[in-house]
């Protein structure tokens, strides 16, 4: 969980910074998308680094889910008889209890998001339009339900990171100074949620056209 999660967090940070290029205008954003494909060129063929990144990310997602499923199955086996009284959480932290169902919501979101922004299948502009046009078309006020889904998914990502970030340090045996560690996890999660939601909300309210 910890190692694959760390890979995915690094991706999220890069992805969020890339997204913010939308505020620098259509040319800057489209140029950035083009650069992702031509990284390392001409030394390397186009898409080399991008394909490697895609493979690493896919592997990380699959292994992350495999770890989660095996942990859940071990948990079910370790407690075959459930408690009759509703188990009331004694530890603080709402985020901790969203990890499993939140992870499923995030997975559904990622599938939709790829169909929307990468392949353009469910995007009004389709896959041939520029990335900027797809982004602007995708979050029009008339498609408010898409933006709402993104919002819910990003809040889930935030909860996931709030627990996942400090938890990764704990699992790898690196956790020290818990108060600072958990506050740091909360801050990083909040920055990522705000950063990711900035673009869809800006499009919806018409700041980015």
């Amino acid at each position: 969980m910890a190692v694959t999660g760390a890979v995915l967090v690094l991706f999220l940070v890069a992805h969020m910074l890339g997204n913010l290029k939308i505020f620098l205008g259509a040319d800057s954003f489209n140029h950035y998308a083009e650069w992702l494909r031509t990284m390392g060129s001409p030394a390397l063929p186009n898409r080399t680094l991008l394909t490697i990144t895609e493979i690493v990310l896919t592997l990380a997602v699959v292994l992350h889910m495999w770890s989660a499923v095996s942990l859940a199955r071990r948990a079910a086996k370790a407690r075959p008889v459930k408690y009759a009284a509703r188990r009331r959480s004694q530890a603080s932290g709402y985020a901790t209890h969203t990890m499993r169902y939140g992870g499923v919501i995030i997975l559904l979101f990622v599938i939709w998001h790829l169909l929307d922004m990468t392949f353009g299948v469910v995007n009004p502009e389709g896959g041939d339009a520029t990335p900027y046009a797809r982004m602007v078309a995708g979050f029009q006020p008339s498609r408010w339900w898409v933006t709402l889904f993104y919002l819910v998914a990003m809040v889930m990502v935030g909860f996931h990171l709030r627990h996942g970030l400090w938890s990764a340090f704990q699992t790898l045996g690196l956790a020290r100074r818990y108060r600072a560690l958990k506050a740091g996890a909360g801050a990083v999660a909040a920055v990522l949620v705000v950063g990711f939601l900035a673009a869809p909300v800006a499009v919806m309210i018409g700041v980015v056209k």
Partner: protein
Amino acid sequence: MNLTLKIWRQNGPADRGRMVTYRVEDVSPDMSFLEMLDVLNERLILEGDEPVAFDHDCREGICGMCGMVINGVAHGEQRATTTCQLHMRHFEDGATITIEPWRAAPFPVVKDLVVDRSSFDRIIQAGGFVSVPAGSAPDAHAVPVPKKDADAAFDAATCIGCGACVAACPNGSASLFTAAKITHLGLLPQGQPERASRARAMVEQMDAEGFGGCTNTGECTAVCPKGIPLDTIARMNADYLKAASK
């Protein structure tokens, strides 16, 4: 105080078991939870019924024998308290209280509220010791221990092995118990020679017993009657990863 108790009754390991409702009247708020159950049991015996079986020994909160899940919380909602030290004044008159045994596959129910915690013994046998020449007692100052390490080791050593951590964990993990023992011995100079092999052997035994995996929910430390901190689990993970990578 008058109370309604819903208690798990199970005749033996093979019995299916069920919740049975009892009324207990004239309970003093100054009674401990176990004394309240004693009152119920005396009445059950007089009426010719089988008394409710539960584990207990010192009734001072230091032996680790007692423990039951009270209203869904291991040892009840009072923090840092064993069931024997929990007093009835923390309950409302007329309340309904649900009482269940620790629930975990590696803790099979022996009878009613009594579970078999031999799996903990086997985790200790796997590495929860230091191999030292057991001659006469050494001088107290023969091996200097920094005060900070001694305190942290002692905090971990206060674990009484009651099993509340397992009972409270949504994953049924025994990480807090195992980590307490690994931390207690691993922080002291006498524990260094076996530090790596101990962490490895104890973690592997814990997994072999069928306990779940830790997902850092923190439920264990919240119900722990001794307040064993979560950083013991980080230390266990660090020692285990170091041992496993060798």
